[in-house]
């Protein structure tokens, strides 16, 4: 056991791998080469189209103990992972590790396969019931949660070796060129799949839209795709969209957005060339709307918006407020429609987006990012993975990547959720270290990380409601009471990996 720099106890090893405790966001630099995949030569007249998923599994050589992956661009509308696991189970293959970019509530269908030992570990973001059951100790399946950039890093360095990637391909030809732009299940950017396609030993494209060769524009090319399988449906694109992609009308959310816009305005970053990322939550979108107003009034032309792209961002691009969008995943159908036709709406891979170990990620060029939180502590550490009940319910996404990369990272959150305080002495799980969080904005006030005294002074000059984070915590505790600490068992059921591969926190089994 070791203590990391944030005071979290980290085991020496987990699921057979030696662990590196988190030290700081900047210094870790492993000396490793990029992972390689087997060199291949196929006959010039080879056919890649197979009869079905089962044939593809057999052709890929998937065996007990191997690792598979999928991408989550169809999010809760994804049908691929469930279909693949069904076939793997039917073939009697066991002890599979899933290293998908993320899994969602729709994938609760694989729970019986976990119980049967078909799946024995998860190295991916977990949203929903599976994480909850693992936290309760009801599923024996160790989890390693990575950020989007961290996952790209792990695949590229070979830390996670994907044996077979089963990639949903909304528009695909018979020689394996595919993109996400058209077809009944168009999902737009295939930013996560790009990394798998480059680094998995075998790549299978699954499509419900097999088109005559060539499928252009090519997103993922024939040169990395081994097999093509036509299936009835890869997913339901309507479920890409969540209800959180609308601007909030809640007065408290709007107040938070107003404060956040005040922070951005005070930072001095909002000028020509401004770059910006915001999430899909109602408050984040309300901040984007405020920023849009400020940019219009100031006649400011930004450089780029990035991350998961929404229709709201598309509108800002088309209005000329940004020069380009760097899109790693489309968050709604308007973004899907835009990426297919707009040359300045650029599809990017997860490694280009956020990998800390390459020659430059987009997040490094971000001026400002708006992020959410389930909890923040008085040292500005943020939890987005577990809820206050200790259950692992959410993926990290690009949270810790963008917080580290952006000049100004702003956490927006209502001060009270349900009856629980958002700001507390200690977060249940650390996802993003306080060293990379600049400002926490709630409706009750703005807390500026002491690392930024000049920003705090400017906000005070503008009569913004600036408070010390402990003052804010106390004010919230006055209303909610001090939350009782959760009780955990000693056994570690999951790891939260920082983007550089060190371990920032562990997830322990919740004492029931």
């Amino acid at each position, binding site marked *: 056991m070791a203590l990391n720099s944030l005071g979290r106890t980290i085991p020496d090893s987990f699921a057979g791998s030696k662990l590196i405790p988190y030290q700081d966001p900047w210094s870790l630099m492993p000396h490793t080469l990029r992972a390689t995949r087997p060199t291949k030569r196929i006959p010039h007249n080879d056919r890649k189209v197979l009869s079905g998923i089962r044939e593809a599994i057999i052709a890929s050589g998937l065996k007990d103990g191997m690792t598979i992956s999928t991408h989550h661009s169809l999010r809760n509308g994804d049908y691929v992972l469930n279909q693949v696991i069904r076939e793997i189970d039917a073939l009697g293959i066991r002890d599979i590790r899933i290293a998908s970019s993320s899994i969602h509530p729709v994938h609760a269908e694989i729970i019986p396969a976990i119980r049967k030992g078909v799946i024995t570990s998860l190295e991916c973001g977990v949203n929903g019931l599976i994480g909850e059951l693992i936290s309760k100790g009801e599923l024996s399946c160790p989890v390693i949660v990575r950020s989007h950039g961290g996952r790209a890093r792990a695949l590229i360095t070979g830390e996670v070796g994907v044996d077979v990637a089963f990639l949903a391909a909304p528009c695909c030809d018979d020689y394996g060129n595919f993109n996400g732009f058209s077809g009944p299940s168009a999902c737009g950017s295939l930013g996560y799949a790009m990394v798998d396609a480059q680094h998995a030993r075998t790549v299978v494209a699954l499509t419900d839209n097999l088109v005559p060769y060539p499928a252009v524009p090519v997103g993922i090319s024939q040169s990395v795709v081994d097999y093509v399988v036509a299936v009835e449906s890869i997913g339901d694109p309507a479920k890409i969209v969540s209800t959180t992609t609308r601007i909030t009308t809640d*007065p408290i959310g709007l*107040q938070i957005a107003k404060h956040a816009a005040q922070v951005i305005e005070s930072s001095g970053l909002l000028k020509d060339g401004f770059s910006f990322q915001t999430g899909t939550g109602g408050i984040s979108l309300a901040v984007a709307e405020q920023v849009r107003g400020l940019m219009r009034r100031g006649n400011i032309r930004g450089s780029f918006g990035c991350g998961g792209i929404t229709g709201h961002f598309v509108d800002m691009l088309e209005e000329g407020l940004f020069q380009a969008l760097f899109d790693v995943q489309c968050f709604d159908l308007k973004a899907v429609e835009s990426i297919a036709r707009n040359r300045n709406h650029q599809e990017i891979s997860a490694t280009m987006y956020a990998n800390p170990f390459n020659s430059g990620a987009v997040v490094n060029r971000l001026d400002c990012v708006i992020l959410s939180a389930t909890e923040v502590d008085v040292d500005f550490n943020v939890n987005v993975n577990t809820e206050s009940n200790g259950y692992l319910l959410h993926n990290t996404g690009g949270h810790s990547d963008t917080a580290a990369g952006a000049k100004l990272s702003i956490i927006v959150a209502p001060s009270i959720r349900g009856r629980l305080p958002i700001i507390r002495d200690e977060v249940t799980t650390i996802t993003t270290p306080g060293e990379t969080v600049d400002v926490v904005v709630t*409706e*009750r006030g703005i807390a500026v990380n002491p690392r930024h005294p000049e920003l705090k002074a400017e906000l005070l000059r503008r009569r913004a409601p600036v408070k010390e984070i402990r003052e804010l915590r106390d004010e919230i505790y006055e*209303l909610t009471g001090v939350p009782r600490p959760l009780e955990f068992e000693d056994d570690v059921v999951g790891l939260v990996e920082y983007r550089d591969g060190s371990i920032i926190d562990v997830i322990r089994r919740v004492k029931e």
Partner: protein
Amino acid sequence: MPEFQLRRSLLYVPGNMPSMLQNVPLFTCDAVIIDLEDAVPLNEKDAARILVKRFLESHTRRNKEILVRINPLDSKWAYHDLKAVLPFLPDGIRLPKADTPEIVEHLDTMLTEFEEELGLEIGRFRILPSIESAQGVINANDIARTSKRVFGLGFGAEDYTASMEIERTKGGEELFNARMTILWAAKAAGIQAIDTIFADLNDMEGLRRETELAKKLGYTGKCMVNPRQIDVIHDVFAPKQEEVDYALQVIDAIKRARTMGTGVISLKGKMIDAPVVKRAARVLRTAFAHGLVDEIIHEEDIHGAE
């Protein structure tokens, strides 16, 4: 209470909703009106009263004016409302259905009794009568002058149109006479005029138009039912930059006059006297609330001219 109280925006907060009450300190309106009347169903009157009482008891670090809308004085709840809330020192009472001066006088008497009982300064609790019937409009002039506690007249258009058996429209032509009569009564009595709510929460342009009209006529503030409306109302009531510049010149001129031992001075050929200074101070007070000036103008800057 200072002589000039900024009341651009008065937000109704239902007295039976703990989540809304909890957020009162956060809203950026100038005043809240905690409602025990129309927003509270009959079977929740007692519970709401207790909730409001607890809220006032705990909400001691106040950053805005707090008024309580009690039930009509002729109802069985009004006395209990006052008894519950007054010990916890709201700034004033919004009196619904203030149809006659006698009703306001009655409340004035009751407030005096409570003040004596509580050992408070007589006149501490202020009154904002709500003119919301044809009778109230006719009596507005007398109502405005009934008591020194009355700091303004509020217009309640929803009840007013009901009393007139007409529909309220977006254009608001049907309200014109009532709006003006209430305004004249308030101005003649030297008190504030507070306009009615704009009920369509999704029509911000409509809200802007109606607030602009109210401001143009002479209303000093507007009531609202949702915090989303605050920004639009404040934006409309924000002074123009040239008004602010002129007000700063007026204050500067009157300070010079004081050093010269006079209360009157000319600025660009126009006489600057007490009313002009008072208006300038009011503009600057509003400008300060909007962040257009860095300093608030203190009372002595105003009184120096008087």
